[in-house]
């Protein structure tokens, strides 16, 4: 499990061959979205998105900026609720349960579907408290020892423990950008989510830190369903098993990553991949 330190320069092939792309198709479906629309005030941001997301695989959303990929990602754990004037239509189901059902508790939902953001956003607290925050509010740790265990194992899973084990009480904001982002991943993992949403998690990082995070994503795939939004096609190709292409608020094409990149069905997808859009 402690695999990351030092293995920075992992090649594209080594990541991609970690799992046969076809496997992803055979995985059970975790999330299903049907006809999802989003309006911001009078402006429609998403037009009827329908997609299935498989369990324990990485699905990436690509597309030019402003295409709605992030908006859709934020629908999945109802982060759009926090934006005034945003309305979401259609259905999204997690294990067959409608997440927009009024009786469903959004707090509980977000504990099951964690999220990592574009810009590393550690709380202005210590590293330990950052990771412990989720378990604390959800009451997941019965004792201090429990909590220590959760924090250490989450940091380990995020590949950060060895780097920070001596300074767990120092502020999380003092870490480097890449470390901060891994701290945020550890923070998300600590709650024990089933799905992790990542909104362009590497866009604010340098190439080395990006490589580490990508490798981490590949590791996490074993235990979590991961949906990642990225503006980099290379990244999508490196880390994901399935890829969905968004354009102007529509889902244009979706399928096994290799197929999308080598043999797209849709002309727009082809144009994007050839660098003609965006």
């Amino acid at each position: 499990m402690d695999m990351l330190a030092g293995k920075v320069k992992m090649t594209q092939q080594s990541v991609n061959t970690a799992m046969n792309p076809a496997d992803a198709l055979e995985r059970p479906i975790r999330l299903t979205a049907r006809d999802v629309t989003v309006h911001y005030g009078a402006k429609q941001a998403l037009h009827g998105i329908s997609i299935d997301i498989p369990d324990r695989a990485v699905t990436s959303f690509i597309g030019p900026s402003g295409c709605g990929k992030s908006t859709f990602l934020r629908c999945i754990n109802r982060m759009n609720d926090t934006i005034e004037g945003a309305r979401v239509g259609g259905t999204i189901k997690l294990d067959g349960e409608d997440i927009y059902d009024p009786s469903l508790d959004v707090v509980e939902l977000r504990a099951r579907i964690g999220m990592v953001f574009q810009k590393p956003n550690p709380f202005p607290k210590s590293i330990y408290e950052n990771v412990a925050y989720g378990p604390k509010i959800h009451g997941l740790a019965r004792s201090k020892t429990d909590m220590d265990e959760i924090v250490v194992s989450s940091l380990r899973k995020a590949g950060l423990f060895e780097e920070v084990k001596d300074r767990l009480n120092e502020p999380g904001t003092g870490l480097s950008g890449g470390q901060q982002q891994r701290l945020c991943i550890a923070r998300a993992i600590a709650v024990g989510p089933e799905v992790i949403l990542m909104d362009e998690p590497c866009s604010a990082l340098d190439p080395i830190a990006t490589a580490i995070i990508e490798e981490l994503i590949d590791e996490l795939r074993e235990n979590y369903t991961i949906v990642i939004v990225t503006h980099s096609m290379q990244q999508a190709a490196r880390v994901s098993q399935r890829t969905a292409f968004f354009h102007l608020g529509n889902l244009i094409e979706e399928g096994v990553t290799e197929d999308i990149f080598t043999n797209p069905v849709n002309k727009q997808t082809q144009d994007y991949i050839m660098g003609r859009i965006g």
Partner: protein
Amino acid sequence: MNSLVIAGLLLVLLGLAYQSGWSRSRGLSTANGVKVHSRPQYHGSYVAIWTLVPALIIIALWAWLGDGITHNFIVSQIPVETVQSLDQVGLNATIARIRSLATGYGVAGEILPYEQTAGDALRSFQFITFLIVVVAAAVAGIVALLYARGRITARLRARNAVERVINIALLACSAVAILTTVGIVASLVSEAYKFFTFIHPLDFFFGTVWNPSFSSTGGAAHGQYGLLPLLVGTLMITLIAMLVAVPVGLMAAIYLSQYAHHSFRAVAKPIIEILAGIPTIVFGFFALVTVGPFLRDFGSLVGLDIKATSALTAGIVMGIMIIPFVSSLSDDILNQVPRTLRDGAYGLGATKSETIRNVLLPAALPGIVGAFLLAVSRAVGETMIVVLAAGNSPVLRGNPFEPVATITVSIVNQLTGDSDFAGPQSLVAFALGLTLFVITLCLNVFALYIVRRFREQYE
């Protein structure tokens, strides 16, 4: 009358100069079609400035020296033996009588012959000197006008010269703010220093009894000027005010910025901010006639002896006054916390209140503390509410239900405006003012520093 004549003279000179510069410049450009560096209005302004400055210098010189010259003239008109027989006060009185005679209003009592002649002489002297000043100013202005006009050529950089003058004028204006601070510090320190020649600073800063005697004739019996009762009163009222304003203001800011629908916010926020625009005297009246009696009745209902004018009354009303101050500052600060932090907490499944309490407030804490300190400084310096509603009882005690006095109240009581600045009775106001100034300055500097650091952190 005189000032009107001078203002008129200056206006005429100004118009003349501008016109002359302007037309000369026009003449340049139309006559030989050369490229003139500056536009005519700059040449006009250029000549006008040249004209105005010497005229103003002469008038200013007269305003500065004229009084002394007139004084000497009057003394020279009084017979020498009379001057020698009079002491300073008597001489001044005589001079005042002569001045009054010269204005033509007449004086009380019998007019001595030499007074009458001196008065007449003074009248003609004043008239002549005034004429001389006016003529001198006009001549200086016109000479300068002609000189400046002569300098106007196509290549004269009149615009640059005018802009330099504008620049200097602007600089002078911004110096006013500095001068105000210097004036405040200088007047407080110098008058407070005079006070400390009567009362030892240790007796002032650490004295526990405030009992100034108002019989300034009593020589050594100045009374006692212990600051502590006032300081305790000030702090007690400030504390009560903050106990009211901080929870209400902060919670209101949180609700408005995090929970309220934007249409509710658009209505409620300005209404709360009305409180900030209401004059403090109005709050004082409200405290005196409504809140005070209410608290007293409420106290007797629950068996507490609350006075109608007390630290509690003044503190509560002052707290109400500060609510919008706390809430709008906190609102600003909360809005500066980056959205990504909030998203991070929501993404973990935190509820809104958990996000606010555990993430937003800790992140905003330095800024909010700064805002509170600014509010404290405002409460410490607040005057009218306390003057009306705190009961003015400068006794050292810790019961908020009793009347108290504060630093500001005592300043108002000691400096009634018609007092001379000779005794400690009125000078103590400046020592109190200095104390108040230092306290609020420290609070402000510290608070502004914290807030600035906080802003930089998230920029």
